[in-house]
């Protein structure tokens, strides 16, 4: 009797705690969405408005199409905003750099898995590219890039995204390649396939769902990257996270509604992608420490 009661209490406690955390997780996201539908007089009101009434699409229109009629005395800062350019840049940079990193990373990973291309020490040292914070080199990097003509260019920022993505690409794809039985490659080899053909036509197709998971995992990181983009871009290659900060600090006050409207556009594609690959997320950073 007491035992079943205690067990029931424990189960209830568990649900209560998990639900509490779920609410803490969801509330900020709810707030972005709800703010993005609020008219400007409800952005700062006290008490705060939880359900925009009436909900409006003005914020989305102002962010994406341009402010036509904004409250007190037109806002010049808006002309600086280039959401479609930022969207295009973010798409090209995140997808391009990620694809390149996953492709090259998986070839390196194959070499490591099958030919010990990099020793375990080197594999861990590769992580330095990711683990040492970029802020410590961005100043000389931007100077160097300006001499190479790479400052404020897609190539320059893309190369940096590529390099910082590579460690995760190698480690993550290696965990998938390690699971491919060697017999498959040996069969291909007996049939006379070259090493390169074996990699591209036998091994990589076998791990394609792993490659997709790796791609999306790194895409999330590159899509949200802020610091490199802030420093290595000026006006041409602004990405969405930097675009978002343009709604900040200008004289006309904080434009919560528009920030929220743009945030929705930045965030929700990522959440969908992440939920899509949720089962594989652990591989992204388990670095061979979790055994199945």
């Amino acid at each position, binding site marked *: 009797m007491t035992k079943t009661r205690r067990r029931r209490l424990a189960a209830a406690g568990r649900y209560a*705690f*998990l639900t509490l955390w779920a609410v803490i*997780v*969801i509330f*900020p*996201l709810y*707030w972005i969405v709800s703010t993005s539908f609020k008219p400007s007089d409800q952005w*700062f*009101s006290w008490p*705060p408005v939880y359900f925009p009434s009436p909900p409006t699409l003005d914020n989305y229109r102002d962010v994406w199409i341009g402010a036509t009629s904004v409250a007190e005395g037109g806002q010049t800062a808006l002309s600086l905003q280039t959401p479609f350019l930022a969207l295009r840049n973010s798409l090209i940079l995140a997808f391009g750099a990620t694809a390149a990193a996953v492709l090259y990373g998986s070839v*390196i990973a194959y070499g490591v898995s099958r*030919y*010990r*291309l990099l020793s*375990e020490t080197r594999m*861990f*040292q590769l992580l*330095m590219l990711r*683990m*040492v*914070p*970029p*802020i*410590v*080199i961005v*100043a*000389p*990097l931007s*100077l*160097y890039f300006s001499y190479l003509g790479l400052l404020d260019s897609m190539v320059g920022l893309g190369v940096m995204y590529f390099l910082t993505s*590579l460690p995760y690409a190698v480690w993550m794809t290696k965990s998938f390649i390690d699971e491919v039985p*060697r017999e498959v490659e*040996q069969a291909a*080899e*007996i049939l006379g396939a070259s*090493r390169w053909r074996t990699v591209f036509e036998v091994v990589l197709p076998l791990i394609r769902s792993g490659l997709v998971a790796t791609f999306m995992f790194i895409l999330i990181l590159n899509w*949200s990257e*802020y*610091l490199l983009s802030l420093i290595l871009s000026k006006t041409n290659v602004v990405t969405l*996270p930097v675009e978002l*900060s343009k*709604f*900040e600090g200008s004289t006309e006050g904080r434009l*919560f509604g528009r920030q*929220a409207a743009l*945030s929705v556009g*930045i*965030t929700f594609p*990522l959440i969908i*992608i*992440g*939920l899509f690959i*949720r089962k594989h*997320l*652990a591989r992204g*950073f388990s*670095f*061979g*420490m979790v*055994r199945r």
Partner: protein
Amino acid sequence: MAEALAGAAAGKVAPGRLDVSRSQAVRRFKWVILLPLMLMLLSLLTPVLLLQLYFSFHQWTVYLSSWWQADFVGFDIFQSVFTDPRFGWAVLRSLAFAGGSTIGCFVLGFLLAYLIYRPFRGQALYYALFIVPMLTAPIVIAYTGQMLLDRNGPLNDILSWLSGHDIRVLWLSDPDIALLTVTLLDIWNWTPFSFIIMLAGLSSLPKEPVEAAQILGASAWRIFLEVQLPLLRPVILLALVLRFLDAMGSFPIIWGLLQGGPGTATETLGIYIYITTWQDFNVSLGAAQSYITMVMMVGIVLLAIRLLRREKRSLDTMYTKPRDAEETA
């Protein structure tokens, strides 16, 4: 060693064809793979690190003319960094922020993982919800934080409603609270990371030791402390180390939310370097600060790598699969 391994693998395919041309081909294959990476590192990182070193020893700000004519000043700039109390505070704040975030994420992430790892109704839904913060861009979290934590924001409203008093905490403008605020936001952002790692660790634990302990009549608490926790050591280490390293370099949340303010209350290393270089335009000072930070971080990373490698080694010997053993033999 590597050639021998490749040879051994090949030996299975075609016994007797283990010859020089093959190992040459393997070597060429390896070089072709590595060459682009080496070229990139050499052409990008080397000049950047040299420039960094140059600026650390030559006094230059953007107000002076060409940077290559700057005066050599020896260790003066490093000395001014080391005697700068603001830099020392930035180091301490970074450590406090990273340490707080690491511990907070770990405790919460481990607790959530422990509560969720055995199948129960709703498990998949909770898992999906819990990973969401990690998928949100940090800069979005910063700006959302600004809305939520405003003096007239919903957080104070909810706290007032819960407590029945009128609570107006100045989450962002009170210098005593600001660092705690950004740490809490960082914990919100990255708890999923520890959660995912600990969940993977917990669900990959072998079942036999736990069952054996249960048969021997051990309590759940003792099983956790004396059986599961020791087995989880490598995963725990991984979760702590990676989170700490990442938090040390954290930039967007603090910058987007407070720019190091109010005053210097949230000025961590990354923020201070940024302000020195891009607001004061003191490139040399920024370079020296960066250099010291980099040396420190490389030191910490190397230490972390040694720790992780040792754990991975012991795992490797524990889990050597019969198939692998056969192939290397």
